[in-house]
């Protein structure tokens, strides 16, 4: 009887999910309710978790709950500590969920809500969650070995090197693009700038509190910190109203970029307890709170989605980034669907804490589903805006022009109605002088979130909500920036240590300063170029980040596929090989297009050629020429990085094919 009830419930969930999903996919009226997005997502996650993840765990990985995990077997009270599953889940989720799943879907909304949503849901359950779970399992079975070590041992030295370099490149490009997002949110916005600036002394204060006054009291310190952050948002508004105070915080992009670069360097050489650790506690609390809050607000308010299902920009002419729907929607949304970065967490701290293998599906697969859900909510928040407003905020000046009236005209010509009065009113409502060309996704997400919150809890507070959302995004972007620079530094010290032992000492101050400066210079360069680029920088940097991240995912899935084949599970290898094949197709296609496309907004070489031609006509002023020269150099560097990533990827793929071939040939001989 009980099993029949269960079956009926699962059939109902499946039917409801199928209904909601087909509604999203096929409905073509003026607007669609966001509740259907949430319903489709939750039903798909439940079905996938209950059936697909359970099947993989039982049949493919063959999880054994009687086998001791490394946390139990190697328990040393330091890094191997058997921990309650919910605690591990919390730590794992806090580690994998960063700003990526918020920004990617917002940018991909230029194609309409449908392509991105489908990719987040399908890619999440078939790709990302499978990757996270299998890598976690293999790492648990190998005493918590890292992805790099597993790649080296299972596939070969080159694959190990590839994962190392891939990680470094992602880190650099990710930090640059995140820095750019923060700069664009703070550009000529005294309110946003002063609030973000205030987060630094607040974090330091909390750091001192937790180090000297009440050591290790995380909860109370974080609550004090969050209270102070809210005050900072409020006083940002006060500063914004005072003419003299305003002028201290009203800065252009280049000044802000340099501030972030200097800040990034300082943060990376300071001890972790002073700035990084306390800000991370604050960001985790704020992030968790905001995501839960957003889910509740969407559930109560059930906002209408105003973005069309599919826009005309699938042909590659999109203003936010150039490139056709295929392959660029799959590159733009990495985190939220599949993110190679997660494999580093799944093979890092998490496998050393799990106290029983039976929790691997919940933590590995379930953790990714939750991140995928965050991405769905970001998509909803982007698509509740009027499309005209969405494009006005996200289109760079290179696409719509410096002048507001001209920008409005251009956006109207695309078929999206928005007026100058609408934009001015919205800007003044959120406490900004202008919302035009605030590229990078954060501001439009903040406007979307603010309008959802304001509709649910009071419209007159729109400006507060907007700047709260900006602060929220900035806080954990800065954490990623700081943590990333630090890890980049450790990796560099490790590599340089082979060349010159003194540079490899992580405790040495001079080595720390030199290597941190190198890492900061690397991302600082891309950040600076992104700021001076009239196309907004996001157009170049985000796809580059996506390609690098998907390449790392491909390496992780190669490791998974290689291990499955070697352990005699060739018939199940499609579980990882299928998403792997898809990633290889999209990364290779997008890399090829990014290099060779004739479209100047897609192809690096075409853009460089176009600028060279413009310069040869001698019509440009000196300043533009100097910018063009810098951009051309940057395009060449981008081309080199992209070629490098693709070559590495293909070497790893050929390695997997070699393993598959030899293992199969051997087993045929035996039989």
């Amino acid at each position, binding site marked *: 009887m009980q099993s029949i009830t269960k079956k009926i419930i699962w059939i109902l969930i499946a039917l409801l999910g199928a209904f909601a999903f087909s509604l999203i996919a096929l409905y073509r009226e003026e607007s669609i309710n966001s509740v259907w997005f949430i319903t489709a997502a939750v039903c798909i996650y439940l079905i996938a978790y209950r059936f697909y993840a359970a099947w993989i765990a039982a049949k493919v990985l063959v999880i054994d709950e009687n086998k001791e995990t490394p946390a139990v077997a190697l*328990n*040393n*009270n*330091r*890094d191997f*500590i058997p921990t*309650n599953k*919910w*605690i591990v889940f*919390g730590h794992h989720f806090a*580690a*994998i*969920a*960063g*700003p*990526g799943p918020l920004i990617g879907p917002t940018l991909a909304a230029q194609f309409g809500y449908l392509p991105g949503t489908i990719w987040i849901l399908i890619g999440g359950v078939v790709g990302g969650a499978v990757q996270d779970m299998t890598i976690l399992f293999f790492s648990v079975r190998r005493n918590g070995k890292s992805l790099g070590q597993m790649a080296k041992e299972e596939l070969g030295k080159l694959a190990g090197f590839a994962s190392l370099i891939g*990680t470094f490149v*992602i880190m650099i490009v*990710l930090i640059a693009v995140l820095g750019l997002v923060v700069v664009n949110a703070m550009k000529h916005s005294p309110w946003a700038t002063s609030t973000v600036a205030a987060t630094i002394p607040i974090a330091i204060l909390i750091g001192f509190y*937790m*180090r*000297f006054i009440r*050591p*290790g*009291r*995380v*909860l109370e310190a*974080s609550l004090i910190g969050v209270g102070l952050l809210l005050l900072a948002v409020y006083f940002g508004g006060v500063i914004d109203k005072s003419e003299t105070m305003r002028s201290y915080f009203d800065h252009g992009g280049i000044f802000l970029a340099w501030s972030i670069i200097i800040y990034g360097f300082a943060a990376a050489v300071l*001890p*972790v*307890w002073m700035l*990084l*650790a306390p800000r*991370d*506690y604050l960001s985790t609390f704020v992030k968790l709170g905001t995501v839960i809050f957003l889910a509740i607000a969407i559930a109560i308010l059930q906002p209408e989605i105003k973005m069309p299902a599919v826009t005309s920009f699938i042909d590659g002419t999109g203003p936010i980034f150039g490139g056709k729907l295929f392959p660029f929607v799959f590159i733009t949304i*990495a*985190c939220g669907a599949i*993110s190679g*970065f*997660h494999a*580093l*967490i799944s093979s*890092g*701290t998490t496998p050393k804490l799990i106290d029983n293998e039976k929790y691997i599906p919940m933590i590995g697969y379930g953790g990714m589903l939750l991140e995928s859900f965050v991405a769905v909510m970001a998509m909803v928040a982007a698509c509740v805006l009027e499309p005209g407003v969405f494009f006005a905020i996200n289109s760079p000046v290179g696409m719509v022009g410096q002048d507001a009236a001209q920008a409005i005209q251009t956006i109207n010509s695309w078929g999206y109605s928005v007026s100058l009065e609408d934009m001015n009113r919205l800007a003044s409502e959120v406490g900004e002088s202008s919302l035009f060309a605030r590229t990078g996704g954060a501001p439009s997400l903040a406007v979307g979130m603010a309008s959802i919150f304001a509709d649910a809890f009071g419209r007159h507070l729109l400006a507060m909500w907007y700047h709260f959302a900006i602060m929220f995004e900035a806080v954990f972007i800065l*954490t*990623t920036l700081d*943590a*990333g620079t*630090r*890890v980049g530094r*450790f990796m560099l010290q490790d590599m340089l240590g082979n060349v010159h032992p003194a540079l490899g000492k*992580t405790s040495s101050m001079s080595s720390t300063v030199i290597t941190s400066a190198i890492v900061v210079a690397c991302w600082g360069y891309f950040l600076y170029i992104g700021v001076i680029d009239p196309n907004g920088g996001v157009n170049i940097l985000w796809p580059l*980040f996506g390609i690098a*991240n998907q390449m790392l995912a491909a390496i992780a899935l190669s490791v998974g596929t290689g291990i499955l084949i070697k352990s005699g599970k060739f018939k199940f290898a499609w579980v990882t090989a299928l998403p792997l094949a898809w990633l290889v197709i999209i990364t290779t296609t997008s890399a090829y297009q990014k290099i060779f496309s004739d479209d100047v907004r897609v192809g690096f070489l075409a853009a460089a050629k176009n600028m060279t031609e413009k310069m040869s006509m001698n019509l440009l002023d000196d300043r533009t020429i100097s910018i063009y020269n810098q951009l051309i150099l940057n395009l060449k560097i981008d081309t080199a990085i992209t070629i490098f990533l693709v070559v590495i990827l293909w070497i790893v793929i050929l390695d997997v094919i070699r393993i598959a071939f030899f293992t199969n040939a051997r087993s045929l001989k035996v039989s």
Partner: protein
Amino acid sequence: MIRNLINFILTLTGDNDYEIYLKNFTKFHKHKKSHLPLSRKEFFKTKLDQKWNKINRCC
């Protein structure tokens, strides 16, 4: 019930880390009298340094 919930939250945030460390410490070093556990302050400093010397935050 409420006590358990508070305890769970404090474990999740990391507030209980030192108590867990102390509890396990006596288990680990029963026979070595010379070995003393770290102080609360030292423990949290070491813990943070360890936490942040590897990839710990994603995109």
